[in-house]
């Protein structure tokens, strides 16, 4: 099984350790993982604005980079959601459809395809607030959305609970949006910041020491809010915890 490693642009520049953890973690399961060097961005920022014209070229480049792989795995729910559900600014050729169908967010890939049953190399003796992003929950189905009736499941929590020492704390609004929302955090800055500070307070009320998420972009926003407010919370991508670093 050949896996194409999709490292979103902001992880490349700001959170390389999340990318390194993702690569190492996949390799621990014996997968052949290749990082195509010409990748940039999946097109989501432009598509989110409704700008199909400018997202088309980025989408085509994404498909060119990843068309030859059995699976494409990325440590970012919202980017993967874009590829799977909204990469439609270019004609939907068989290879585009192949790429869209075979692109997975890291947690769902580990849970559904690799069927990871243990992370013996990892331990993490902290209280953790889990932030499953909206894209991961309602877009990719990584957990049962709280609005939907049925038997609850949470793939991220299931994986994290296999890590020795880790304690997940409950939250008042477990799947309330944190206000990142891609370009929303800039164009609707006041509302976005208000949502973010409420989210951070929710972790604080439950004594979380770390916030862990499959979506680093939400954490980038939450971390910025916490820092500005002088709140000492730490933020990690789920790959770093499952891989036991790098931190």
């Amino acid at each position, binding site marked *: 099984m050949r896996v194409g490693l999709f490292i979103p642009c902001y992880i490349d520049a700001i959170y390389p350790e999340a990318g390194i953890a993702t690569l190492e973690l996949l390799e621990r399961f014996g997968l052949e993982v290749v990082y195509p060097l010409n990748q940039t961005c999946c097109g989501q920022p*432009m598509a989110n604005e409704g700008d199909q014209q400018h997202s088309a070229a980025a989408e085509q480049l994404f498909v060119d980079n990843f068309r030859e792989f059995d699976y494409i795995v990325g440590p970012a729910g919202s980017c993967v959601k874009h590829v799977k559900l909204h990469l439609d600014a270019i004609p939907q050729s068989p290879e585009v459809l192949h790429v869209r169908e075979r692109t997975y967010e890291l947690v769902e890939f580990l849970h559904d395809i690799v069927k990871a049953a243990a992370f013996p190399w990892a331990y993490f003796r902290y209280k953790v607030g889990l932030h499953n992003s909206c894209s991961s929950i309602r877009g990719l189905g990584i957990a049962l959305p709280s609005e939907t009736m049925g038997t609850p499941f949470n793939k991220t929590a299931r994986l994290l609970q296999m890590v020795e020492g880790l304690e997940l704390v409950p939250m008042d609004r477990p799947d309330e949006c944190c206000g990142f*929302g891609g370009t929303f955090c800039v164009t609707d800055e006041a509302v976005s910041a208000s949502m973010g500070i409420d989210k951070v307070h929710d972790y604080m009320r439950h004594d979380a020491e770390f916030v862990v998420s499959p979506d680093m972009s939400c954490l980038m926003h939450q971390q910025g809010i916490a820092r*500005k407010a002088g709140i000492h919370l730490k933020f990690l991508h789920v790959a770093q915890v499952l891989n036991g670093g790098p931190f």
Partner: protein
Amino acid sequence: MGDDKKVDVAAHAAAFLAQDDVHEPMHDKNLWAARMKRDAAAREVPEWETLRELASQIKEHTLTHLYDYLLEFESNAIKRGAKVYWARDAAEHNQHVWNILQEKNISAVIKSKSMLQEECGMTAFLENRGITVTESDLGERIQQLDDQPPSHIVMPAIHKTAEDVAQLFARTIGTDPRNTDPHYLTEAMRDNARRRFLEAGAGMTGANFAIAETGSFVVCTNEGNADIGAAVPPVHIASIGIEKLLPKVKDLGIFIRLLSRSALGTLATQYTSHFSGPRKGGELHIILTDNGRSKRLGMPDFWTSLKCIRCGACMNTCPVYRRSGGLAYGATYSGPIGIILDPTFDESRYSELPYHSSLCGSCTAVCPVKINISDQILQWRKVMAAKKYLPVSRRLAFGAAGKIFEHPQLFRSAETMASGAIRFTPDFLLYNRVLNPWGRHRELPHFAGQTFREWYLQYRAKNNEHGEQRP
């Protein structure tokens, strides 16, 4: 309507947030509580998801056979003694109402909450012609006295505190400004309104559901105000949007079970009143109104928004709405459903609304009739972008980003420039509110010393046969 000025919803929302430390937290808390009550009520119904699916299918069926069901409704309503009128738009709707009132020489009406009448700007229209119009729903009456439109479909004054209402009532109906007790205030309004029920020549209602099979319609309220309004004055005028149709009485059970649970988390509204023809000695006038609905029905991406039963669940769950307040949307309909309805009335005026969403998708998941609200919001953005309604600055920014992402080498140098710029730019620039909205409430992320790609090239790329860069 009529005003072509674009609604700047982000600025309105920022103002709602900035006014004090009381209103926004209260608004958020009260509506989140409604969402929690909704969850508890839905959990009690094992077949909840099946009900949603059935409701969605019934609505889609009805909308795709609307012509036949409307004619069936009309003929059955007439058989029961109602007078039925057709209105293509707001102006025709208001004209029908005015004609009926004039013919009966009526100068005062009492009305219960109707979003359609709100859509038509009916109250202002009638008041300009000397008619006294009194809202009988408590929340709606509060908004009327404050000269504001409703800020929520189900809870029109939810953005106001008890103190706000005490001040307003003191100013308008002479209550004690220091007494904020809800019972006292409600009782004062009841005394004030009852007189108006007795004096009114006509009672106006909307309708939650209209049944083709029987020509009857259903009005759901929690205060019983629609019933007294329809029962006391001699004339009942009902404004019904053509999308309110259901084929048969037996369909109703599904919607009644969903409506109030989704809205407030109650099992049913306190009053679920069926109106089948005029009461003895009275008159019933039904105005079937289009006002843009058939145009929306013809929009392939947006027609399913007509399934909406106006429960307000999407507003209660929407984290953006909860923090903006409904008035920020500057439109008849606010919240997620407003974002997808309002542009069908005026694309230019409401072109910013689709951007007032984090696209979290909670609205779609909570909707009792399964409208893909979040997808339609994104779809509206595509319309706005294609028709160039976006501000020029934003178009240029995303155009430039698109170019950078198209070319790997450009992207690498942009990354290097951005990280360098952030390292060497003084704080006053980074946290300047005009130049950089990110920095006002958030610290900027720190760029890493080495990108992932650089790390990969250094430690891994020797084994990677796909490592060659494009020339």
